[in-house]
């Protein structure tokens, strides 16, 4: 029986502690009036610790899909549809996006990054299924910077611990060459420029394989190599009419962008072909140059395995290397530092005054009020 309590109704001091459904109550034993009610919690100290919690720190985030995430998932599906990917790709890409969104670093990232993340998820899905999608294509579609894309992509691969295979070169050749508008006559494509798709595709593939074997592909962006190879393949199929066509003109007719490194890749590929031609007796006498070798690309490709082995057995393009002798410095780090050496780095008082005057003049000039 607690002391000091009076029932407000009847004034009795007979107050009994009773619990009603685990809620403790103070009840007057005379009239049955409930004086005080307990709280539906365990202890008083617990209640004292209760505070308002922000949404980001509650579990509410995990229980519903935020609007930002919903937007992102919608963008992933849209991108898959724009690229006309098979339907299974969509689900995988969505799953990657959701997985990435579980990480706080991604959730708190800027919208620009979240936008680029959409592209990264689609790219990873395509790479894992050998679908030849280049980063350049995605960046163009998303209006994104390649630098931002690359940073987000590397971060995502590390975060999710993924093993992303390299771009499949053969598939890229097929897709890229099929996009060339050279297989039907049109106002921009004269009759002599029209080519059979299968022939051009097979020859381009062989030239790209040759480039890969002779070290023209490793470390370089794959697309310019394929452009150069496609150009040579196309030229060699009807050299008499097409030798006069330049690489730029070819890309324009085919309605394809000319990537900048393609011209250097073209020169390198021609140099390789010339080296191979030197191994064939009946071509050696012809004294071929970079233009005339195009006519014989068919022959060279037919025997490419033996020719490459013969032409490059003693090493590839060895340049006399000047090995720089390592300069051995005898610095210990504890030498004396002379005062004169340090003083050369300090301004004289006159210089300081001049500098301050110049600074003041400069500031005055920039803050001159506009003349009325």
């Amino acid at each position, binding site marked *: 029986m607690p002391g000091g309590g009076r029932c407000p109704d009847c004034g009795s001091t007979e107050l009994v502690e009773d619990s009603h459904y685990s809620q403790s109550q103070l009840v007057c034993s005379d009239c049955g009036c409930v004086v005080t009610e307990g709280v539906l919690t365990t202890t008083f100290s617990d209640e004292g610790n209760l505070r308002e919690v922000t949404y980001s720190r509650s579990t509410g985030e995990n229980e519903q899909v935020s609007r930002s995430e919903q937007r992102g998932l919608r963008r992933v599906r849209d991108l898959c549809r724009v690229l006309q990917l098979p339907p299974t790709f969509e689900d995988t890409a969505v799953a990657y996006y959701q997985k990435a969104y579980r990480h706080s670093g991604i959730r708190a990232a800027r919208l620009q990054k979240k936008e680029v993340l959409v592209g990264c998820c689609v790219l990873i899905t395509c790479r894992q299924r050998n679908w030849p999608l280049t980063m350049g294509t995605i960046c163009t579609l998303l209006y994104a910077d390649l630098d931002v894309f690359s940073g987000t992509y590397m971060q995502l691969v590390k975060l999710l611990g993924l093993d992303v295979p390299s771009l499949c070169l053969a598939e890229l050749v097929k897709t890229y060459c099929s996009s060339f508008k050279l297989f039907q006559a049109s106002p921009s494509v004269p009759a002599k420029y029209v080519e059979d798709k299968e022939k051009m595709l097979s020859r381009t593939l062989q030239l790209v394989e040759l480039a890969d074997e002779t070290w023209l592909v490793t470390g370089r962006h794959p697309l310019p190599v394929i452009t150069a190879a496609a150009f040579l393949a196309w030229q060699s199929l009807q050299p008499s009419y097409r030798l006069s066509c330049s690489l730029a003109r070819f890309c324009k007719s085919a309605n394809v962008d000319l990537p900048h490194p393609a011209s250097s890749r073209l020169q390198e590929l021609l140099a390789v072909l010339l080296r191979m031609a030197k191994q064939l007796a009946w071509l050696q006498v012809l004294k071929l140059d970079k233009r005339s070798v195009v006519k014989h690309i068919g022959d060279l490709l037919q025997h490419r395995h033996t020719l490459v082995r013969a032409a490059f057995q*003693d*090493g590839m393009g*060895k340049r006399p*290397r000047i090995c720089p002798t390592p300069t051995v*410095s005898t610095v*210990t780090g*504890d030498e004396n530092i002379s005062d004169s050496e340090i003083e050369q780095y300090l301004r004289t008082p006159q210089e300081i005054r001049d500098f301050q005057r110049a600074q003041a003049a400069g500031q005055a000039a920039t803050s001159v009020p506009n003349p009325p």
Partner: protein
Amino acid sequence: MDQNNSLPPYAQGLASPQGAMTPGIPIFSPMMPYGTGLTPQPIQNTSSLSILEEQQRQQQQQQQQQQQQQQQQQQQQQQQQQATAQQATSQQATQVASGQASQLFHSQTLTTAPLPGATPLYPSPLTPMTPITPATPASESSGIVPQLQNIVSTVNLGCKLDLKTIALRARNAEYNPKRFAAVIMRIREPRTTALIFSSGKMVCTGAKSEEQSRLAARKYARVVQKLGFPAKFLDFKIQNMVGSCDVKFPIRLEGLVLTHQQFSSYEPELFPGLIYRMIKPRIVLLIFVSGKVVLTGAKVRAEIYEAFENIYPILKGFRKTT
């Protein structure tokens, strides 16, 4: 005894393989001792062959030598039989026997002794005929030493600094607070750059060795002292070391990323090199198709050397085979 040509018998075995050699193979310096790797100097030859391939070539050439000698022996035997056909049979027997014995003797001297007067066309003429291959070629060190290119270090000058004063009174300082909240100071010897913050902390970059970095940091501290601040030289620490070297053969990066996928990242659309994150020691290597390797992330020099010795056998596995 009459021979086919005017060359003495011990040199005859040499002459023919020369024709079999494809011209243009660079000459390996005969002074390079077998199995080197202990001399800390880059290989001074201009060829792109590694030591292992040299050994293989030596073995092939010695095998060619052997074959040539056998052919020579057969030819000489036939000659002798023709020459002695007209002589008495008893003399024939002894002569043939002695001829064969002398040939065997010659062939033995060919194989084991160094060849006087013969130009050093073959690498390391001291190599024995039965090649003693090293127990595990992989355990040989590469003989290439990475060169340090950059050292980043930090030091605490131990007092608050007024950057405006420093920028005003020092010739070699630039200070643009809107762009970066530190003074950028440069000295000529050792050629380095320092970032000096108002808290008194300083970052020194550009030195080529640990000692140079320490000397440069001391010089910067001295400059700040002379500008009127009570600068000290506390907690000097090397934070990062960058080294580079050349393995001198091209590397198939696509192959390397396939087999060492958990450490490598190779995206030719983004960067021409392969980024290899080694676990032990914790170093990041940038490997390029030309064979140049950049190593970074080391706190001590030994980590760079260790990382390179770890990667070299892996890279040798991916050099071209054509």
